[in-house]
């Protein structure tokens, strides 16, 4: 439960940064996006059925910051999460190039759902694939950031836990 809240919080921060600072992160029809790697990172560690609720939460949050049709983000992100859970036992995601490949592959699903669902299917080539590639290229950076954030939050929890224990 705690991890789900952490992921929703991280996702919300990313959404705020991406929408508030907007255009500097945008090139043509693509943008630096941390949400797809975040869901993949979360999917690699957190199992069903609890995990899907956080992903749906992120989808609903994303929807509030976009004019996208209702439910589309939730559908795209849920699809990504289920895909990564399905292929989990068949992949290794330790090396940088493996992370790039994995996120590029998952991004194609997310981008395709979003573009087709919003009536902009003609942008799938070249922009959709360019977005998938961009997400993949930046995946190692995002994974590093999420791992760091997670370890900081976990160590803080442990510190507080020890303190509470000693107080008792």
């Amino acid at each position, binding site marked *: 439960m705690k991890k789900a809240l952490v992921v929703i919080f991280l996702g919300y921060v990313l959404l705020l940064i991406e929408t*508030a*600072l*907007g255009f500097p992160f945008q090139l043509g029809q693509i943008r630096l996006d941390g949400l797809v790697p975040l869901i993949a990172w979360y999917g690699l560690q957190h199992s069903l*059925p609890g995990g*899907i609720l956080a992903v749906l939460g992120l989808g609903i949050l994303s929807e509030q*910051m976009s*004019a996208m049709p*209702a439910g589309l983000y939730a559908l795209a992100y849920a699809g990504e999460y289920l895909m990564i859970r*399905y292929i989990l036992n068949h992949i290794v995601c330790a090396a940088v190039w493996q992370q790039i490949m994995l996120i590029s592959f998952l991004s194609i699903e997310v981008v395709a759902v979003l573009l087709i669902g919003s009536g902009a299917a003609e942008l799938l080539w070249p922009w959709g694939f360019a*977005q998938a590639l961009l997400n993949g290229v930046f995946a190692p950076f995002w994974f590093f950031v999420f791992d760091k954030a997670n370890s900081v939050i976990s160590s803080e929890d442990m510190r507080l836990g020890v303190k509470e224990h000693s107080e008792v």
Partner: protein
Amino acid sequence: MTAYLVLAVVVFLIFVVVGLRLGSPAVVSPVKYFFVDLTGYLQKGLSGPSRWGGKLWRSYLALQDVELENKALRQEVVQLQKEIGRYREALIANARYKRLLGMKEDAGATVITANVVGVDLAPWLATITVDQGRKDGIKPGMVVMSGAGIVGQTMETSFHFSKVLLLSDYNSAVAALIQRNRARGIIKGAGEGRCYLAYVEKVVDVEVGDRIITSGTDRIFPKGLLIGKVSSVTEGSISDLFQEITVTPAVDLKRVEEVVVLVTNQPFVESHH
């Protein structure tokens, strides 16, 4: 088996969320608007420093050419004053003719300035969030402008913030006409801050540089507001009925930072007399 069950639950949850949003907006709206306001304030806080930095940099650049610019501006002021005199005369004459013809005056509009605090999460959707909302009288379907011309229309409002659909969005359509020859068409969004003028027949004479203005027939935009200028014209293939006309908006839609919203109580309707 478990996987199928989970999949069914996920699909069900998505349907519940979508159903609530579409079917019972009254249930979801208060929560949604609270969230939009909260997010708006956070976006405003985040976008503030970058906006301020940008302004500072532009001010510095502007200072470098200030003497030359001053000289040119003084000459321009003299020219403009002459023009204002002529326009005043035309305005007075116009009012007199309107009275003679018994036509109604345009609906008066209050102008509210707003800052852009956020952009759409999806790069191919051209919507922005501005920091004025229902408390200022803004409702969906109101005209949003910048100094140079129209920017778009409001599409959703919370108490303190509003979402604006830009001219360049694929879902945007504005009734327009070519100022020079009064030929009518529809301005549609083409993404990436660009637009095109649709449904103009091949027999119509269109030139690069022609000014495109609102026609007022869509009941949202009042007549005569500048949209942009024609940047290219092609006839298309022989089977095409209409010309392919790209329009460069008067406002740089990818760099817009401040806008004005025309707040009215009634729609702008073109007078037909």
